[in-house]
């Protein structure tokens, strides 16, 4: 309970400054380079570690514990341990297995496309012409506008009877499609997601701006074309950012929840159409619609393991293609 008294002391002093800036000074006193670096590392990551230890660990373990109980929202004072029952149920839950398959499918389809489109849009915006700030802002709008409005707009586009896309198709005497029906709903969702990939431009732009102009100037002298410059300079130096976007993209895609719901309905508990019934949707339905808290948590912990394994997999490949100035992985 040491943290508790510490907190109260902070409150009393009215100051929440970490004492660690002072400690930073002390680091210089240690002589060996190695231990000096190690100490510096741990001091610098200590804000995260300390907060995680006091704010993160307990809820995590408590959350894990709940997934082994019969918790359904109101019985926290009389929980019973049910062992691995919730986890066993996941594997006999046909919806869970089906939705996990759909989730991995859409992640594999969407994440690479989304990452590429985000980078292309950023390249388009990485110029100094008049009014670029406005273009950048407009391109970023998809990630500012509430998802509810985005969902509404896409339902306008996709509507069966008087949807904009179908009206255009009919104008060219092409057959109208039921975009939100079983056969095309996933395609429609991918289109909507790719449309929203503009949210990645901020990080991509920051990455592009970090590439020293010297490199481009040097290769101009060597007579390199724009394409060559892109593949020899921009792309390799952007790999850390692309790597970041891929990892975060996968984490996000596997947790995707709200987009498929808003494409079909308007209320958060409306289940999306079957092909877009993803794993996180299933888990949240269990928790929010049916208050199966324990079971929902078991579902999410399994998802956690899947995402972790996938992330480690991508990380181990990174040494072959991601450009770092220092040793990061392998």
């Amino acid at each position, binding site marked *: 309970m040491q943290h*508790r008294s510490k907190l109260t002391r902070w409150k009393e002093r009215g100051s929440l400054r970490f004492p660690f800036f002072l400690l930073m000074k002390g*680091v210089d006193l240690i002589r060996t380079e190695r231990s*000096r*670096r*190690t100490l*510096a590392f*741990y001091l*610098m990551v200590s*804000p*995260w570690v300390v*907060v*995680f230890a006091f*704010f*993160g660990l*307990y*809820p*995590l373990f*408590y959350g894990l514990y709940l*997934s082994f109980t019969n918790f359904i929202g109101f019985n926290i004072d009389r929980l019973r341990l049910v062992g691995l029952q919730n986890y066993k149920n996941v594997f006999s839950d046909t919806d869970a297995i089906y939705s996990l398959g759909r989730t991995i499918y859409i992640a594999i389809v969407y994440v690479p496309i989304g990452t590429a489109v985000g980078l292309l*849009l950023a390249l*388009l915006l990485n*110029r100094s*012409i008049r009014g670029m*700030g406005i*273009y*950048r*802002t*407009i391109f970023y*709008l998809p990630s*500012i*506008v*509430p998802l509810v*409005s985005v969902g509404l*707009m896409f339902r306008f586009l996709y509507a069966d009877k008087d949807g904009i896309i179908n009206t255009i198709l009919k104008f060219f005497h092409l057959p109208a499609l039921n975009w939100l029906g079983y056969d095309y709903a996933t395609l429609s969702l991918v289109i909507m997601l790719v*449309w929203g990939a*503009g949210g990645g431009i*901020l*990080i991509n*732009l*920051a990455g592009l*701006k*970090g*590439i*020293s*102009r010297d490199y481009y100037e040097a290769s101009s002298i060597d007579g390199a074309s724009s394409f060559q410059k892109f593949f020899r300079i921009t792309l390799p130096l952007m790999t*850390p950012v692309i790597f*970041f976007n891929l990892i975060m993209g996968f*984490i996000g895609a596997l*947790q995707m*929840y709200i987009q498929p719901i808003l494409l079909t309905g308007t209320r958060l508990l409306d289940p999306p159409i079957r092909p877009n019934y993803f794993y996180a949707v299933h*888990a*949240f339905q269990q928790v929010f619609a049916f208050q199966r*808290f324990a079971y929902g948590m078991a579902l*999410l912990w399994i998802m956690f393991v899947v995402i*972790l394994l996938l*992330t480690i997999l991508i990380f181990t490949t990174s040494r072959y293609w991601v450009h770092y*100035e*220092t*040793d*990061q992985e392998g």
Partner: protein
Amino acid sequence: MTSLRYNRTNRFILYSALLLCSVMFVLPLFLTLSNSLSPWFDTPDFLPRAFEIENYRFAVTMIDFWKFAKNSVFLCLITVTTTTLSSGLVGYAFSRIDAPGKKVLFMIVLSTMMLPGIVTQIPTYILFHKYGLLNTFYPWLIWGLGGSSFFIFLYRQFFSVIPKELEEAARIDGCSIFRTYWNIFLPLSLPVVATVSIMTFQGAWGDFISPFMFLNEAKYPLATALSTIGYVYERSVIIQQVAAAASILFMLPVIATFFLGQRFLIEGVVTSGIKG
């Protein structure tokens, strides 16, 4: 990109691409705007059938709009300043300093993003209850000081492309590790700092779940107020048009922040660093 010389065709292609994308991306905003100007209980459409500017007056008077906005500003102020600086420090350590246990620790940082918040929501509430932190802004301050996994990862990636030579030069000059970070790496990474600030602001401004869980109505930020209290006529009949007007007002600060913040996305700082 002054090195690219634009001829007419290039220019035409560039502007057409920009314009086409702009139209696509501005649509939902336009739709929301149209909806916000429509008469109550109208079915949404691309062009409003009327021009009900009154909806905006209702948006700020039907609920205590400015009080909630004030709370939002305060929450954002706490979060943006702490998260941006703290994440940078941690990200720098993960990127540039070698130490035993680093990889495992980094995986732990990443793994905290792999579990949706719902798993820890109720336990966190219980924890805050024990600490007496419910209905205070302290959690945001402490979360901010700890930094966010997402931005730690982001900083790490950006710091890792800054040339080694720079670090070595600093060391020869006798800079401590911390000074190298504060005086050299951070100023060089202005675009990243701007990116993180904008995104943190956007995240804090838009988050409605945590404030809903841990605060009472008097301390709700706008996001939570709009999503829980909302604009209800009677018997849970939501006035979509006023809600749309409110969401336009709600978006404006984020759009403005982005517009102002993206100016910080400038090149040249790193270049001058190497030359100097």
